[in-house]
């Protein structure tokens, strides 16, 4: 395996997500044992992944707040008003 292939195919992410077939996974592991530069990049992806997993609830909440055009409390109020009108 070449360093370029590891980066081009985003193999580190697929590796940690369990998305590589066994042969590619073995090749990937041999490569990071041989190549300190790629190992360092893979360690960075691992650290980032762990940090993201820790912060996942916060990120999801923040993105819901930011992306929501119709906030939940307004929708609830509208539904409540509709029920009263019936």
């Amino acid at each position, binding site marked *: 395996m*070449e360093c370029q292939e590891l980066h081009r195919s985003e193999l580190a*992410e697929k*590796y*940690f*997500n*369990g*998305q590589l077939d066994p042969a590619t996974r*073995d090749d990937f*592991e*041999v490569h*990071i*044992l*041989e190549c300190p530069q790629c*190992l*360092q*990049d*893979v*360690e*960075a*992806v*691992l*650290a*980032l*992944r*762990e*940090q*993201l*997993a820790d*912060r*996942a609830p916060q*990120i*999801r909440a*923040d*993105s819901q707040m*930011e992306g929501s055009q119709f906030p939940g409390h307004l929708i609830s109020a509208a539904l409540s008003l509709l029920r009263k009108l019936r």
Partner: protein
Amino acid sequence: MEGESAVVTVTNEAEVTLAERIRAGDRSAEDELVNTYRRGVFVIAVARTRDREAARDLTQEVLIAILEALRGGQLRELAKLSAFIQGTARNIINNYLRMRAHRAECELDIEAHSTDPVDELEFLERRRLVRRELETFSVTDQQILLLSLVDGQSLAEVARTLNMSHDAVRARKSRAIRKITKKFASLSQK
């Protein structure tokens, strides 16, 4: 490429020399092997077990097994040291996973783990660095990273989820990961 094959040759020669020195009883070669491969074996163990504590113990177990094998001259093709280490790690970790599954069935207690304080400090420093850097990213960038790195979504899926173009997702994701890897590299150079 000429340059790339030269690098591979040097790596193989270094592996042969290291394995030969260990077989000849050179203790400093054993330290060199541990320092060269410890982090890689640890990453493999974390990825396969998803358990940092277990990965620490497994890394030690793998390195001890490799040293014993090299001392006993069990590695036939010395140039394939990395492949030998990977194969040994895979087998030991797979055995551990089988035992863990069995242990979970039997509800046995898990023994206490020892932690190398230097490794722990390095881990905490890296963790702090990644957290600080991550907090500087926009919510959208954090979401892109979360969906792809943790949830395992493809770029196309992330683009659909966030209603963005494929190229924009790819560019933002690459830029964010590049920032983190650069920070990592600068920490290693300190």
